[in-house]
């Protein structure tokens, strides 16, 4: 083998070894309940819907529960939003719809948006802020600049108490609340958004109106 090939292969091997080692060292810690994805069903159910998780709709009979891990800045979530709203309208109190935050680190404003929704929730306007975020996403999504001012404007438009809103927006408790949702998602195996769980099972189809509707109907028919 020529020197050229030898040295080239050595570089490739070294890079692969170092990256492999770093990935191994940095792999996510195993959740306390057991290995990821293998947590017991009870533990998973508890993790999917925490007592403080936001239920946008509640089923009277509790038969079907849809949990969505979403990133307010992710365009696929924005694309799924109208379908989800339509389903919530059509099914009313026949399904429970739970919204969980999963702000992705590469989206600069996603975590702040989730905190804004959370802070609006403290004044009873969670659903309004959630809808506003998705409806306006094209204007503030996918940008590197902070959209704090934009989100404060949303709060003002909703007629919120601004002093309180800003305090809640920056409160450590709010930050922790949002990140706890994300941690639950990671442990449950969420790697991207939107990720839906329907009655505890990971929904693997296209998160379109029809795709979700079919899955929900199947569960309702059980």
């Amino acid at each position, binding site marked *: 083998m*020529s*020197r*050229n*090939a030898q*040295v*080239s292969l050595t*570089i*490739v091997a070294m*890079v692969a070894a170092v*990256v492999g080692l770093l*990935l191994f060292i*940095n*792999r*996510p810690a195993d959740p306390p309940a057991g290995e990821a994805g293998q947590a017991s069903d009870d533990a998973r159910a508890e993790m999917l819907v925490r007592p403080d998780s936001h239920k946008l709709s509640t089923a009277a009979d509790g038969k079907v529960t849809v949990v969505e891990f979403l*990133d307010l800045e*992710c*365009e*696929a979530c924005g*694309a799924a939003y109208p379908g989800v709203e339509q389903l919530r309208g059509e099914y009313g109190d026949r399904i429970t719809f739970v919204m969980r935050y999963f702000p*992705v*680190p*590469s*989206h*600069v404003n996603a975590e702040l948006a989730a905190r804004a929704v959370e802070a609006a929730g403290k004044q009873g306007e969670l659903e309004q802020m959630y809808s506003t975020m998705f409806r306006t996403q*094209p204007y503030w*999504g*996918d940008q*590197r600049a902070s959209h704090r001012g934009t989100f404060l404007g949303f709060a003002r438009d909703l007629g919120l108490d601004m002093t309180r809103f800003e305090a809640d927006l920056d409160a450590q408790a709010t930050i922790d609340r949002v990140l706890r949702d994300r941690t639950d998602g*990671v442990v449950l195996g969420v*790697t*991207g*958004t939107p990720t839906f769980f329907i009655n505890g099972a990971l929904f693997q189809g296209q998160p379109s109106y029809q795709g979700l509707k079919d899955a929900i109907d199947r569960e309702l028919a059980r």
Partner: protein
Amino acid sequence: MSTPTRKARRSRTEPTSPDGGDERAFLGRLLPWVLLVGGVIGLAAAFTLTVEKIALLRDPNYIPTCSIDPVLSCGSIMRTAQAEVFGFPNSLIGLVCFAVVTTIGVVLLGGARLPRWVMLGANVGALLGVLFVHWLIYQSLVVIGALCPYCMAVWAVTIPIFWYLTVENMRRGHLPMPPRLTRLAVTYHGVVLTSWLSAIALTVLHAFWDHWVTLL
């Protein structure tokens, strides 16, 4: 009888070091293939991106086939201003240029010896391409914060296309360079390419480390 004669003639016109001989012969055969394969991959990527762009224009809610997760997300990239630097989608540049690269590869593979000005012209084009690609890499990793798999295919082929055109032009004397540098480039062409691509790969890994870790 013809083989030894041809060999003898080649060693007279291309004096070789004990180590560089094989590499020289190998390089001459390598460039057409790099251009052909790289050109076809680049063309396929540019074509797909153009089709996706049209679909996105037709339906703003369209989710491109390469929007897999938050980081691998063509959709977020294709909507940025950087995706239309010159006022039209960048992929149109790729459609035109990779077609030319492919053609040159085929012509060289057919045994044609192109004049110096053609080879240098191709080299200048490839230089502009490689500079543009590095600007796009920076935009993608640092400014936008997302990756587009088809665009990454273009990054991956533009670098070897530029590098092997340059090495071949140095080797043939089209590109006047100090003999020492030419000898180094010819002998260690693969080392330069591997280091270059590894550096890009490491930058991509580093920029989205949190994301890659969650995929484990």
